[in-house]
């Protein structure tokens, strides 16, 4: 029942968005080359689907996103687990992290392109950076805040390193980390498009630039819709996965 209701919410909300779009199209007198109607955008989308261009670009983007995001999360969590257990070391690392964190990953783009050239790597690195710091910092703080009774019990029952890390510490902090992994997904997706706009010759971000250069506002809009839709789908997939895992964790009833 709840699910049906939320599907209803989604459909109405999206129809509203289309309505506003159509309304703006009707009320303003931009030429349709500058501001296409929803119908024109959908026609462009159908065109790109039928000639396979869209799928190629989605494939390129998804590959970069998967590699960048997954490797970032894994490395950030592992590093966070260790640094969380070594607060004295982290005291020396934290200021540097705090300095690097507010820098937009895009600021590194010129260097990244100079060092790694055009291709998959720049976008992957941008995604990696964008997900890395939030996950790292939340893991460290979750490990610092771990209930001391878990450590007492582990000591008492003779659980030593490295088992204590994956048997006790990681599962104990996972529910807190899960939230930041989820948030980082959104951030990483935002930066995927930005990363592909300069460093690549394919992908949904590149398609934005390509459509602009060819003065195809309809393709541009179609692309933007696809970017939003995939972001939405990724988010809800992760949300479902998160729920399943937390259920197996015995929490969040």
């Amino acid at each position, binding site marked *: 029942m709840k699910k049906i209701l939320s599907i209803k919410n989604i459909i109405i909300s999206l129809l509203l968005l289309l309505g506003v779009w159509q309304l703006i199209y009707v009320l303003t007198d931009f030429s349709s080359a500058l501001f296409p109607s929803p119908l024109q955008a959908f026609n462009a989308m159908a065109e790109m689907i039928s000639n396979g261009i869209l799928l190629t670009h989605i494939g390129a983007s998804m590959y970069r996103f998967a590699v960048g995001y997954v490797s970032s999360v894994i490395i950030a969590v592992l590093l966070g687990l260790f640094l969380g257990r070594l607060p004295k070391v982290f005291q020396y690392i934290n200021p540097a992290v705090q300095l690097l964190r507010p820098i937009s990953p895009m600021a590194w783009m010129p260097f990244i392109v100079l060092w790694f050239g055009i291709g998959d790597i720049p976008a992957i690195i941008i995604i990696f950076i964008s997900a890395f710091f939030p996950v790292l910092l939340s893991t460290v703080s979750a490990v610092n805040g771990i209930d001391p*009774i878990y450590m*007492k019990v582990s000591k*008492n029952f003779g659980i030593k390193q490295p088992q204590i890390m994956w048997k006790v510490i990681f599962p*104990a902090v996972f529910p807190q980390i899960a939230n930041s992994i989820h948030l980082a997904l959104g951030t990483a997706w935002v930066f995927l498009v930005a990363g592909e706009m300069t460093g690549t010759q394919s992908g949904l971000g590149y398609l934005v630039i390509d459509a602009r250069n060819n003065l195809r506002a309809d393709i541009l809009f179609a692309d933007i819709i696809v970017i939003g839709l995939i972001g939405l789908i990724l988010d809800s997939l992760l949300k479902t996965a998160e729920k399943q895992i937390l259920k197996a964790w*015995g929490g969040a009833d």
Partner: protein
Amino acid sequence: MYIEIENARKTFLQNGREFTAFTDVSLSIEKGEFICLLGPSGCGKSTLLNAIAGFSPVTSGSVKIEGKEVKEPSIKNVTIFQNYGLLPWRTVQKNVELGLESQKVPKEERRKISDKYIEMVGLSDFKKSHPRQLSGGMQQRVSIARALAVSPDIIFMDEPFGALDAITRMKLQDDILSISRREKKTIILVTHDIEEAVFLADRIVIMTANPGKIKSVLTVPLKSHRERTASDFLQVRDKVFELFNMKHEEHIEYMI
């Protein structure tokens, strides 16, 4: 003597000042005894338990188990905590098997041992449940089963029934008493509940605060089967009240 505590003293640094949790504590405990450390909060009873269990060794003096100085916790001496200390992401069965895993007991053997103790605490129908799905009393039963599963010599209990309602508490007291008789473990239990101490203990160690000290050690002259409402039970309870100076004088002298 099995457990030997001599002139033990524990101090902490608190806001730059030294704080004495307990001092001048000397106590000998025999194998198989059920000891209750009884006292008001701040008398250092939990700190003393933590010192014997090895979580936080004494500052001076000595705590020895079987002649060996206690420096760290051991799987031979398991502690049961007030808030259970269960791992919420593990099922009841996996929680009970926790200590067996680190002892490298093979999987089938683990299953057999955990089944046995889960049955002993009456939770066979909840093996696959997670702690959060159980009541407080049931969770404490899981942690009792987890402790027994590694067949420890000593079981430490730090206000184990403090978070439970009165009726559940009495039920668990009954259970722990019968388990201790059957399994013949040495048990040291911290409590501030006088009745609980009288019901469970072979000897009650009465502690007072500021600084934490042992005031007296009372041998409970009751048989192993105890009735909470029997007159001999009430007499012992009275005696403890007296030792805490909590019995009001019956004769009041008037000055005219």
